[in-house]
């Protein structure tokens, strides 16, 4: 068969590739472990191929060459904390399952335009009834033309510290896990199957046991919305916690004699074999640029970008919902009704990546890795997602130097074009 070469924005890419079609993405800077490389990416049946084997064993040329116009080809972005977007709030269950799923799908679809190919729908502090209803609907899926893939739910609460609840509804906060944390968790959440991440305040009664239980159930545990002291945070890490939720936000400020959870960044008790990650909202509002720089310079490896975006993401200024709370949005600022409390963000992942580079002077490769490989490492899914290594699912984005998303590909098929 004669080889065809087409531009990444060609109409011919509106349809999916046929089975076994050999596709080669050329003329791009590919994000590899050793930086951006002028290399190619080979895809067949939705997976990244070992081009050397194709060359020397199959001795085949690609059926289709896709010219990426010199753009950066990065793994698709992974957002581990997303409350909603495009008018949909994941903590709100209105009428029926179908309605909720439709909302989830709508967000998943729209996220493709942000280059996000995997995300963890985040549910803030809610009633047990909400968890029981919503959790079974947040099923894991791979990205497709239907939308970004779902990694499982991120349950932010309700086991948090009331003083550090941020915009979470106070009356729904559960202040103790009681004498049988496993039972409490099951009572509040129901089936834990679809849980990817739980944000928990480690100082609560029974929290350490809860962390162990959640880890054994396959969830990633993150500490946050907490007044915990450093020692409690370290114990949580020993118990299996792997992450800090939106660093600096909803936790005790750093004090040099009482460092709190922020002190975990430089804790001597954390081994490099099992590094601790921290989500950070790099929108210039939730985290001052100076704080971004402090985090970046003290613990670059742990930095994971999250948007913590709410229903207002992708919408215009105005009044929006976050669970039962009312939020006022102006520009990139989201404030809880009648207060000065910052609610979730309205910044997109590309914006956060761009801002991180601007604020910290980090390399574009580092910033991209903080939204791809690192969150995938945290969730233990690098065998499938977050890298462009051989055998991985071919979810990636084409962006320019300004992190402007030009096209998004899921399983090798183009699913978004600017």
């Amino acid at each position, binding site marked *: 068969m004669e080889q065809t070469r087409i531009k990444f924005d060609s109409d011919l890419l509106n349809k999916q590739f046929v089975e076994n079609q050999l596709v080669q993405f050329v003329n791009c800077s590919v994000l590899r472990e050793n930086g951006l490389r002028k290399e190619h990416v080979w895809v067949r049946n939705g997976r990244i191929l070992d081009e*050397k084997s194709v060359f020397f064993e199959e001795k085949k040329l690609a059926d289709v060459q896709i010219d990426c116009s010199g753009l950066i080809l990065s793994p698709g972005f992974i957002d581990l904390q997303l409350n909603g977007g495009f008018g949909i709030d994941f903590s709100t269950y209105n009428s029926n399952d179908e309605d909720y799923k439709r909302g989830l799908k709508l967000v998943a679809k729209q996220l493709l335009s942000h280059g996000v190919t995997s995300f963890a729908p985040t549910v803030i502090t809610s009633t047990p009834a909400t968890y029981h209803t919503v959790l079974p609907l947040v099923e894991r899926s791979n990205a497709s033309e239907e939308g970004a893939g779902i990694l499982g739910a991120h349950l932010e609460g309700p086991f948090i510290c009331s003083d550090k609840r941020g915009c979470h509804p106070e009356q729904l906060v559960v202040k103790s896990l009681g004498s049988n944390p496993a039972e409490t968790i099951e009572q509040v959440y129901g089936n834990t199957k679809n849980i990817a991440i739980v944000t928990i305040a480690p100082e609560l009664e029974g929290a350490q046991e809860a962390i162990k239980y959640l880890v054994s159930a396959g969830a990633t545990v993150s500490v946050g919305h907490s007044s915990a002291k450093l020692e409690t945070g370290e114990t949580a890490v020993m118990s299996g916690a792997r992450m800090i939720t939106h660093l600096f936000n909803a936790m005790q400020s750093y004090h040099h004699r009482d460092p709190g959870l922020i002190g975990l960044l430089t804790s001597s008790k954390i081994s490099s074999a099992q590094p601790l990650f921290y989500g950070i909202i790099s929108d210039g509002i939730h985290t001052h640029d100076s704080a971004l720089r402090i985090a970046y310079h003290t613990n670059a490896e742990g930095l994971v970008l999250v948007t913590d975006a709410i229903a207002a993401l992708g919408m215009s200024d105005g009044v929006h919902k976050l669970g039962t709370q009312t939020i006022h949005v102006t520009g990139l600022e989201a404030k809880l009704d009648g207060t000065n409390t910052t609610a979730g963000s309205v910044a997109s992942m590309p914006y956060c990546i761009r801002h991180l580079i601007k604020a910290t002077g980090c390399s574009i490769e580092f910033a991209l890795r903080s939204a791809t490989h690192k969150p995938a490492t945290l969730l233990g899914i690098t065998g499938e997602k977050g890298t462009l290594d051989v055998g991985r699912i071919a979810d990636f984005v084409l962006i320019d130097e300004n992190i402007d998303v030009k096209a998004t590909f899921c399983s090798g098929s183009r699913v978004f074009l600017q």
Partner: protein
Amino acid sequence: MKLIIEENADCVADFAARYVARKIAEATDRDKFFVLGLPTGSTPLGMYKRLIEFYNSGVISFRKVKTFNMDEYVGLPRDHPESYHSFMFDNFFRHIDIDPKNVHILDGNTSNHEKECAEYEAKILEAGGIDLFIGGIGPDGHIAFNEPGSSLASRTRIKTLNEDTIQANARFFGGDLSKVPTQALTVGVQTVMDAREVMILITGSHKALALHQAIECGISHMCTVSAMQMHKCATFVADEDATLELKVKTVKYFKGLMALHRKLVEF
């Protein structure tokens, strides 16, 4: 025999690449395949880079090119970063439009080396012989893995590397001598001699004695590249540093011809 003397290694790479590009373009124009013999190593790297640039800017295509590599280690996995398969793929083939069916590299992992080598010679014949064989040379004047003492009538075969080469290669294997392959499959001196044209690239003062032996001394199996003196169309492309051991007279003579030689790479 021609000797091209260029200012530095970059100019050598540019000359070689232009020469190759022009030959390929001429053959393609006549709708004929051009058959290239190719080396690995640091000396030809610059040439490959330039050829990739020519390909990227649309000057040439490799669709009508067949290649035969000079050599490959025995027993080193194909995907090992130091294998010549890896070298050629990473530094050249993956960046151009050559059909993998037209690429030939000796397989150092077969159970029957003799058969592999005989088949390689047969494939060269089948392709109509090599139009242009490009080679580098070692400081001891070896071409491909035809170490000093190799027969000048040799053909593709298995060779045991000499101690110098093994020690020199240790740097590619974490300094661990035990990891360096001790054998290689290599085309013979006669295989190179059979090519219609040969071009030898040589750069750096550490190769100056080798160039002196290759072109100013007699033909000797202790400096296998000196066999090219008998080739009807051989070109040495050297940088200034590599000419340091040559007679002033030799250098002046060939420099006087540069205006003429420049014409070879115009396109």
